[in-house]
């Protein structure tokens, strides 16, 4: 079994040792980074450091050296963001640092995305994302979108200040099985419930799963308004979307 000391990249080794504390997450990260090529570890370290110039350079070099785009995305970019997500969840870092890491990820994805799009890989599912009516905040939503796309979802981004009608139009147009709603203000959170009611009135509730998130949103609030799931952060959003899709496919009539 792989040990922490088997991780070759010193930055990654130190980060996992210092900031990852849950046994299952230690095991997963140790397994991932000991398996990952050293170039991928270096890219992940660049992501964790929020160094966009470095990630840009290393990603280009890795492609040139013959690494697959999917390998760079999974073992480098997403693996690095996984550690970033844990540090954010545990309050070791805050939004400015996460934004810098996201900027680095974007630099890497700039090389990877065109290759993946051209390869025609089927997405896991389509997710419609938007900040609710009256709310113009989008940092959290954008981080979720980046992580969802990086994890294999197609995302339709409705932007900010999204009316219930706009969500309904998008569900009808794209036939997406999941929507994600975000709110940063306690004053706009009720618009999540209003949107769910509008989706029910439109007769679409059975076909779409609703996940919600945002700084003031809680599991209790999500339950009260009838959402199918709540994600505390971008990492949780991705695992929630995966769980919801798996459950929906399991329960679908044969």
């Amino acid at each position, binding site marked *: 079994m792989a040990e922490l000391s088997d991780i070759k990249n010193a930055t990654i080794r130190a980060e996992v040792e210092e900031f990852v504390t849950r046994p299952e997450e230690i095991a997963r990260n140790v397994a991932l980074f000991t398996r990952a090529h050293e170039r991928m570890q270096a890219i992940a370290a660049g992501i964790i450091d*929020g160094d966009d110039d470095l990630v840009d350079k290393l990603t280009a070099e890795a492609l040139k050296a013959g690494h697959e785009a999917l390998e760079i995305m999974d073992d480098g970019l997403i693996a690095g963001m996984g550690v970033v997500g844990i540090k954010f969840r545990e*309050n070791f*870092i*805050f*939004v*400015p*640092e996460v*934004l*810098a890491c996201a*900027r680095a990820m974007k630099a890497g994805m700039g090389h990877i995305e065109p290759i993946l799009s051209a390869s025609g890989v089927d997405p896991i599912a389509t997710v419609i994302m938007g900040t609710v*009516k*009256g*709310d*113009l*905040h*989008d*940092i959290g939503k954008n981080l979720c979108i980046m992580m969802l796309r990086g994890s294999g979802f197609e995302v339709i981004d409705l932007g*900010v*200040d999204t009316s219930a009608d706009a969500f309904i139009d998008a569900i009808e147009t794209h036939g997406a099985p999941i929507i994600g709603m975000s709110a940063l*203000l*306690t*004053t*706009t*959170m*009720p618009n999540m419930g209003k949107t769910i009611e509008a989706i029910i009135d439109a007769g679409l509730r059975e076909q779409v799963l609703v996940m919600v998130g945002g*700084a*003031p*949103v*809680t599991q*209790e*609030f999500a339950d*009260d308004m009838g959402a199918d799931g709540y994600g505390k952060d971008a990492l949780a959003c991705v695992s929630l979307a995966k769980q919801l899709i798996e459950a929906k496919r399991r329960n679908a009539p044969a």
Partner: protein
Amino acid sequence: MGTAPIKSMTSRQRVLAALRREPVDRTPVCNPTSVATVELMDLVDAHFPDANRNPVLMAKLAATGYTELGFDTIMPVFSIIQESSALGCKMQWEQKDNWPTVRMREPIWTDVDDIKVPKDFMKHPDIVCVLDAIKLLRREFGDEVAIVGKTMGPWTLGYHCFGVEPFLLLSLDDPGKTMLALERMKEITYLFGLAQIEAGADALTLPDHATGDLVSAEYYKRFLQDMHTEFAERFPAPLILHICGRTVDRMGYIADTGMAAFHFDSKNKPQESMETVHGKISLVGNINNPETLFSKGPEEVRAEVEANLAAGVQMVGPECAIPLQTPIENLTEISRTVRDWHHAHPHVH
């Protein structure tokens, strides 16, 4: 809190005493951000968005906090956008049932050298509206009730004028430039706040959203603690700092600024928060908005008010500006519970 008998106070006396952490006849009920609701708008025929831009309607709607809800304060500045509008930010004024907001995706400044206060800033209608509303309220209510103004802190102005994401990235990429930007923007805070005091405000709420949901406690210390201390020294009226979200990790720093009060969110437990500030600052709050005031009933409101009173929180009220669809009965329950609690605890002041 003391136990000696205190003679009956007016709402204004009660609030000003609580801001000085002096004994009160009962805990004041306060709204340092906003208690505007659609129901109250209908009641006095003063609706959003006009009630944010017309001084008569602004004063009329604000007064309902005292006349209809039984609060001890009147807060005419419902939103957080008046000065950003005057600075030239792109605005979305919305309708009756939504808050006006700044289009932060279309920032007006990208560099510290862009920061300029327009010559006619203090004459802008959205600034004058607030000043005139305060004058109207002072004329109508005299010394009866505390009138609280509101001036945005430089950190929040940074979000509005630079955009949240660019401003937070600037703080990481170039802390020196960020400090310079804050230094320049703080004059806007001062200008608008001072004018409100001159117009008759008894105290000012100073929202400056360096929340734990976005930045660390060390960030607060590094970028804002000294500036907030300076505000507390420069303004000739008590200041109520407002920061939403998780803040207990920075309340110790906030308590050392010399501000009169801190308006805190329900993400922070009343007892723990009181212990953290060590009596150096009054606390105002912290009834939950979305899950309690908006979604539940008077019984749940009562329980949260009592928890705050039992913890010794100096002023009780909603944690932040309340959702516009909040039922009035939940808001009046705050005042009712405070009165009942003091009736049952006559020796607590």
